[in-house]
């Protein structure tokens, strides 16, 4: 974990409201697919807190890029910075997407929880991958897709966005460039299938596409919940990367928790920090019904 001041190489608008931020670092950064950084305009007075952004791409040991949606005060402040501008950065944070053998640990954690909920166990060594990207959740999974491809794991991408324009803002062209099978859905039908991307995902699993597969999903909370339900229904292992409002990003404020199934006495373990215990969790462990977690 490094706390540093990075210098902006570029901060380019892809489509209105979506930007690609490329940062240069003084020191070498070790980051893995699925990890994130806490970023903020250098020494900015307001807003105070840094914002969590997934590492989108690694261009070199000292250059990373981030894909982000301009929403509120923090991302607006980032959007105003130009080349040469300074960014306070704490990284690389959180766990990484497990691939191949790394999946075992997640399977183990998941199966502990599953013994509670009575879910069926997973096949031990999934050789296929299904990557589900919802909206700007795509930022967390581009490197994952490349990693799966490099590991020769059969991979299919399900890419959902609000519209054609948003899909482009969420890096669609970069995903297309991977040349992997890609199912597309947009809420307004302006590109690909009309509706949520969970529809083609469900059809795919119904058709047996989930056999020996692991689902990797990142997107809005409601979508993650739906993906988890579908995965459970078809007994497919599922990992989700979750969002929560973050105070610190390094485990100390205990503000970013989500409720999980817990074995510990007194329920002490009932909350997990998204920033250090995640942001990637086995979907079966999440207590989705804790409604307060939606935003």
């Amino acid at each position, binding site marked *: *974990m490094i*706390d540093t001041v990075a210098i902006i190489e570029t901060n380019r608008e892809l489509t209105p409201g979506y930007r690609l931020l490329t940062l240069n670092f003084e020191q070498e950064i070790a980051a893995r697919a699925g990890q994130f950084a806490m970023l*903020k305009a250098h020494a900015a007075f*307001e*807003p*105070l*807190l*840094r914002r969590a952004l997934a590492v989108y791409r690694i261009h070199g040991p000292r250059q990373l890029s981030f894909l982000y949606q301009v929403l509120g005060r923090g991302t607006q402040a980032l959007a105003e910075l130009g080349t040469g501008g300074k960014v*306070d950065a*704490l990284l690389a944070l959180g766990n990484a997407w497990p691939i191949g053998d790394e999946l075992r640990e997640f399977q183990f954690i998941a199966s502990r929880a599953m013994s509670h909920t009575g879910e069926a166990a997973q096949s031990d060594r999934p050789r296929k991958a299904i990557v589900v990207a919802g909206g700007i959740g795509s930022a967390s999974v581009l490197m994952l897709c490349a990693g799966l491809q490099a590991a020769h794991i059969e991979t299919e991408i399900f890419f959902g966005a609000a519209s054609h324009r948003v899909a482009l803002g969420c890096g669609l062209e970069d995903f297309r460039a991977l040349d992997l099978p890609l199912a597309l859905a947009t809420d307004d039908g302006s590109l690909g299938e009309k509706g949520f991307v969970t529809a083609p995902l469900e059809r795919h699993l119904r058709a047996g596409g989930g056999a020996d597969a692991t689902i990797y999903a990142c997107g809005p909370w409601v979508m993650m919940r739906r993906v988890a339900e579908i995965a459970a229904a078809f007994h497919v292992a599922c990992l989700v990367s979750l969002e*929560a*409002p973050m*105070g*610190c990003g*390094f*485990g*100390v*404020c*205990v*503000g*970013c*928790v*989500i*409720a999980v199934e817990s074995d510990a006495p*007194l*329920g*002490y*373990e*009932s*909350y997990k920090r998204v920033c250090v215990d995640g942001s990637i969790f086995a979907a079966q462990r999440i207590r989705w019904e*804790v409604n*307060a*977690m939606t*935003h």
Partner: protein
Amino acid sequence: MSETLRTTKHDSRLAVEIAGIHFNNPVMGASGTFGYGLEFAGLIDLNRLGGFATKGLSARPLSGNPPPRIVETHGGMLNAIGLQNVGARAFVEEKLPLLAQYDTRVIANVFGYSDDDYLEAINMLNDGEGIAAYELNISCPNVKEGGIVIGNSPVAAARLTEKAKRAAARPLIVKLSPNVTDVTLLARAIAEAGADALSLINTLVGMAIDVNARRPRLNYGTGGLSGPAIRPIAVRMVYEVAKVIRIPLIGIGGIASASDALEFILAGATAVQIGTANYYDPRVTMKVIDGLTDYCDRQGLESINAMVGSIIER
């Protein structure tokens, strides 16, 4: 003690003493924002830190409140963590041994739902090695049990202070609530009940509402407001209390720079604790220490102690 310790150079002008405890400098991490200290080992040199207060420790581990637990506001944040903590026992067994390698003062922040809870936690902590002092958190606004917050009533606060002082094997700091009409009444009652030092302020009770969802932004409803937004209120309270109390004060509230820390010291605090700023500037404690050294240089001070309460009245 570690190798690092012997090589860390301290600016002796910054050394302060509170209730007989020596601090290498007056800069500490505030309870609930500094975890168990260890979380910062990769970010700062803990040997350079004056000290820190642990997350509030209770006799039994607590799971805390359901999310969302935090929300940012202008110049600050609201939190309703609900005192999620490993429990006093686990702290003593699992965290304290790891802290022994650092030359920094560990203050165990203690929390309970009743007087007996507090005493039970203190008794567990009395067994621990390497705790410099206790800080009684009688002012947490984010726990529903117990009805009225002990820390808002001088009578209840004094009663608990007396009991805790008797139980405590170490000096006792009591942390004041700012959610009161007259903080000096509270301070006086607690000082007379035997506290060795006071720390102030804890968070102010606040609320933020999502106007589209028409719900409180925090699951708990209300939360504690912290950060630069509250600093003027905190400085004023330290100033007021310093005028009527003899025991040392630890100033807390919105500190994010050396200049902020100095406001508290001039107002009458012997030391300070930094809370929220650690989240958005994880190395802030080190920057504040460096800034205090610069201030001593600039003002030609032999000891920062000369500045404590040295504000010139208009």
